């Protein structure tokens, strides 16, 4: 027999309590399925990453003891790391450690992977958040403008700008940006997060440079940090802008053709109200997904941008760990990225219910 809220209701409960009871059941089912899918996703992620890490044709001991270690040193390290065990046992051992909150030590830094991530992630967070803010504040109006001026020169220009943001390699754009704004014009500071003059005087509290410089009460250092941030954030922001503009434009085009827009115009509503209130209001849900996706992508580690700008973020951390066959670090960072994706998905789910009452 299929279960329904009605079937769940004990016969002796009054109707009001029964409604509360079924709401509670619905909620707990939703929570259980959410937790279930999060656990499954993370487990799947772990399994795939772990397997890829172990089957790549790179000897993991090279990262730990180097190429010139005598055989007995290699063998001892293999036993210490459990690398002499079958793959499934290695995975179970790793899973057991992860469940206890131990992500292992990075071979390269000798630090627990979580400590490393706690240091590298804020750099990426700072960069990606600034870039996304730029992308949203420019991309949404540009997309709206392109849609409202559909087929005219404004639309053409915006489409070219967006297309370029999609097609131009971020790496190249970063280098050109550095050459122009840092090397030639001297408008912004160069690679890195802050000038060496300030670097060791700022106490790392949050590891967010803008926040830490303010906490230290050093405005010169704050502006120096902003000056370092602005260029890589703009490069990434351009990418984000391109994505958000394209999506906004196509969502808006779909919306502007709807009958209710015509009806609103016929009713004599101002064009601003029609566009910003009605049309934009109606594309909010998919737009939030777009923005969340773009943000998650940037948080995942803007690998090339971080390389060009010597920006010590998660992208740089993962790349270097991969090149050095530091698999513990790669695994740990992958889980964090997975959790960020899941977190942002949940957040955008929550935001739907706020902006669109139907989603409740």
């Amino acid at each position, binding site marked *: 027999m299929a279960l329904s809220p009605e079937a769940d209701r004990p016969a002796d409960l009054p109707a009001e309590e029964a409604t509360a009871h079924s709401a509670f059941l619905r909620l707990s089912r939703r929570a259980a399925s959410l937790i279930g899918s999060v656990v499954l996703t993370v487990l799947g992620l772990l399994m795939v990453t772990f397997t890829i890490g172990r089957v790549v044709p790179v000897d993991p001991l090279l990262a730990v003891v*180097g190429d010139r270690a005598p055989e007995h040193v290699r063998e001892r390290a293999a036993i210490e790391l459990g690398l002499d065990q079958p793959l499934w046992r290695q995975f179970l051992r790793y899973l057991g450690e992860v469940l206890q909150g131990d992500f292992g030590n990075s071979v390269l830094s000798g630090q627990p992977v979580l400590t490393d991530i706690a240091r590298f992630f804020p750099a990426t967070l700072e960069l990606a958040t600034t870039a996304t803010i730029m992308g949203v504040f*420019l991309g949404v109006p540009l997309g709206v403008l392109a849609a409202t001026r559909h087929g005219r020169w404004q639309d053409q220009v915006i489409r070219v700008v967006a297309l370029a943001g999609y097609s131009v390699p971020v790496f190249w754009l970063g280098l050109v940006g550095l050459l122009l704004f*840092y090397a030639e014009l001297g408008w912004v500071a160069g690679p*890195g997060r802050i000038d060496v003059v300030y670097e060791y005087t700022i106490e790392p509290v949050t590891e967010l440079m803008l926040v830490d410089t303010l906490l230290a009460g050093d405005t010169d250092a704050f502006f120096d940090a902003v000056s370092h941030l602005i260029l890589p954030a703009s490069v990434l922001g351009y990418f984000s802008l391109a994505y958000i503009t394209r999506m906004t434009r196509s969502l808006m085009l779909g919306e502007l053709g709807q009958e209710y827009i015509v009806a609103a115009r016929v009713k004599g509503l*101002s064009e601003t109200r029609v566009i910003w209130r009605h049309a934009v209001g109606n594309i909010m849900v998919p737009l939030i997904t777009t923005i969340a996706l773009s943000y998650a992508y940037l948080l995942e580690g803007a690998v090339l941008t971080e390389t060009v700008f*010597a920006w010590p973020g998660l992208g740089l951390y993962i790349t270097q760990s991969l090149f050095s066959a530091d698999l513990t670090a790669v695994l740990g960072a992958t889980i964090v990225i997975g959790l960020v994706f899941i977190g942002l998905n949940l957040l955008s789910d929550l935001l739907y219910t706020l902006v669109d009452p139907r989603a409740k």
Partner: protein
Amino acid sequence: MRRRTTFAAMALSLGLSTGLLGALGPALAATPPDTLVMAKNIDDMITLDPAECFEFSGGEIVAQMYTRLVTPDPKDFSQLVGGVAESWEISPDGDKLTFKIRPGLKFHSGNPVTAEDAAWSLQRVIILDKTPAFILSQFGWTADNVKAHVVATTPDTLEITLVNKFAPTLVLNALSAGVGSVVDSKLVLEHEENGDLGYGWLKNQSAGSGAFKLLTWKAKDAVALEANPDFYLGAPAMKRVIVRHVGEPATQQLLIQKGDADIARNLSPDQIAELTKSPDFELQAEPKQSVLYLGLNQKNEILANPKVRDALRHAVDYEGLATNLLQGQWKVHQSFLGEGTFGALNDNPYSFDVEKAKALLAESGVGADPKITFDVPNTSPYIDIAQAIQGSFGQAGVGVELVQADQKQILTKYRARNHDMVLMYWSPDYLDPHSTTDYFANNPDNSDQGTAKTIAWRNAWDIPELSRQTGEAALELDPEAREETYLDIQRQVQDEGAYVLMFQQVEQTVVRANVEGFVSGPTFDTVTYAGVTKQ
């Protein structure tokens, strides 16, 4: 109306970004006068404990933080001078060395440097038995016997006894490597956990008496050092040295151009040529003892044929590669001991001769158009070198299939003896010919289970006679006879070996014109920052 609103929103956003960009004004350029900033790829650093550190970048930093018992003279690297030891004596039979500790020496912590610290440091290397421990354990020291053989007899006298006899110069050269660093035993033992001799703590700390102490090391980001005012050779002029991890050479070039870095360490020949057009930059070129060679796996029937190996040695355009492609970063050198090493053979008997190569191939009887695979690291300049070699081998009639991969992937394959031909780089572990000879000319057990996985073993080159000769050279007490043996071994390897020995590295460092006194030296741990000054 609608246009005005949309434009207003955009103007606000644009203003936010571009306004900030312009309003910040010119960025700071030029580093502080008492701070040295270096742009370098330091992604290989995994530890700063001298008993474990064996990576290029880590070894360089350890060399700044610790003083070794004896050390190569930065003015003449072929000579050893005292470090923590002021003087030493060698017993007539060569198996006992007695060191007098330099008086008045202090660790960064303020603790005095004693013979006890020196003895404990060497014992610690053997007991921990990490990767570079073999440099000391080859003398026959084990965790069980080291305390009896490395002893502080008085507070300023250290006595070491060899179990396996070796040439005294070899012993001193080995002690001048990073593993010979003298560690502050009192400070380290304060941080000991579960009898680990401070291993867990010392990975990212400093406890030495070198020119600089560690301020901070952020893995994959930067190392900051602070001058030691009590350094025995005098306080360094630079109060701070910051080594920034900059992986991308183009970024390094920009940083030094703008004055945000004083030294750039990983630039390409083109970038160097571009920079040194300006009088603001100077090029420092110092020969390293590192060599670049082709490894020829003797498990491959074609490569096992001596005539084929000889043909291949005539099928490389050494001069063309060095001049046109490597532009001074590598020079032609056809033996495994780099020029400047004791006993190095500096003859370059092979030149590019397609006809001779063809004739040798015809004599070899391997048949027409033999084919081999060629494993190459997927970074510059290795790919370019490999493509040039593929071309010249092709002219001689040998087909080459290039297989590009990450360096670690190639090493894994190389260690498993699964390659045909490989392009590889070798850098000695310490300043003695034995370090390199042992790898190129020693293969005591050529079976797949062989435990001495030397370069000779990796290429399955079975050489009982040469292995014996290599062992003897390490024991030879008479320097002239020793040198003669090394020259002989190199000639044999040059003519018959499972290698095509091609180039020796010349490290090119670009410094800003106001920077002086940076020394790179012949190996990875002879780099010295202590003498750097800025005008």
